[in-house]
């Protein structure tokens, strides 16, 4: 069977970016199964409008934009029975696996506690590798506002982590 160049392009896109997109989706919704669905839906939508992608360098930003819209759409359509991340208790370690009891799991729990307006620019910067200007364009904000949110996001994370560590030491 002959594979079209469009299909080959899509294959390459999925293989190159499925990891980044899944992680971004996971940190948006905090649910692994929902993150998989979101990633899949975003890629299917990308397939339908693949002709709109002109530059390879823009692929990741393009996919993340699609994913963010898909995430917003999902929450417009229905509410999900997912964990309310504000209710996650950093000290409630009984439900965590031994592997998760390390440093990473503490940072992850803190990250899920971060308000979306701080979490999203931080994800775009740390996972997506975008600059403040690129994040500002993606979130439709001013560059100065994005810089402030990023600064505060880190401050809040550090505050949560230092509090947790001091409690852990006590």
């Amino acid at each position: 069977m002959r594979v079209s160049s469009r299909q080959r392009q899509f294959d390459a896109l999925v293989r190159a970016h499925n990891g980044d997109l899944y992680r971004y989706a996971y940190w948006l919704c905090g649910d692994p199964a929902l993150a998989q669905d979101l990633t899949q839906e975003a890629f299917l939508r990308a397939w339908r409008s693949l002709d709109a992608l002109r530059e390879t360098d823009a692929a990741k930003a393009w996919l993340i934009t699609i994913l963010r819209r898909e995430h917003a759409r999902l929450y417009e359509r229905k509410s999900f029975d997912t964990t309310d991340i504000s209710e996650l208790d950093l000290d409630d370690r009984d439900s965590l696996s031994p592997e998760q009891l390390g440093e990473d799991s503490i940072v992850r729990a803190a990250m899920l506690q971060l308000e979306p307006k701080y979490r999203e620019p931080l994800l775009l910067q740390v996972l997506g590798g975008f600059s403040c200007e690129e994040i500002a364009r993606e979130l439709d904000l001013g560059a100065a506002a994005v810089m402030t949110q990023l600064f505060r996001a880190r401050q809040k994370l550090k505050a949560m982590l230092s509090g947790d560590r001091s409690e852990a030491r006590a």
Partner: protein
Amino acid sequence: MNCLEYRRLLGSDPRRESAEMQAHRRGCNGCSSHHAQALGFELALKRALNVAVPDGLAERILLVQTTAERGSNGRRRRQLRWLAVAAVLVAVVGLSVFQLRVFEPLPQQLIAHLGHEPESLLTHTALPAQEVEQRFAQRGVPLIGPLPEGISYAQPCPVGMLASVHMVMPEPEGPVTVFYLPGHETERGNFASGTMHVRAVPMAKGTLALVAADTRHFDALEARWRLTLEGRGDIAAGAL
């Protein structure tokens, strides 16, 4: 640049340090230490955010996409098939309508045929008898008596499903169209449709049909054609 500004910029994007920031850091022990801590935090943050991607995620996405695509192609093919079926149906219905017209009663078919050959009514010059005889010969119709005079048009025409010799005889009150339909025997009758009148008469194993707006010459022409086709010049029994 002062320490406050340096740390504000570093806190918003620790991995992008401008030349001005680097210059400040190199001359400030406190900010240099802060920079090292910030990079350590970034490393821990990046590692923590780097959650494991489910095995086979890319393959599952591609499977869903290719399956949906094949389904969509199948739908497109099915739509084309339905279009083809619809086209055949339209053709069949169209043909049926045409067939229905073909099987309309003979008088209506004869009148309709005049509309198909309007040029037949334009000429008034009589054709040579030989030419008219040839048309009858083409239809396998023997002529017993002499042809009437003044036939201005003669063609072997199909009328619906029937073969005919289509002729026109100009008269002072208007042309009379004469059809002879060999092998088609019908009952004698007079019909009218709009301004047109039709007389159908069984004659010599066929039917003679006269079509005109004015019927006053029908009797004479019927008698005249009977002479030609049957060899006797009277009007058949039961004439109207």
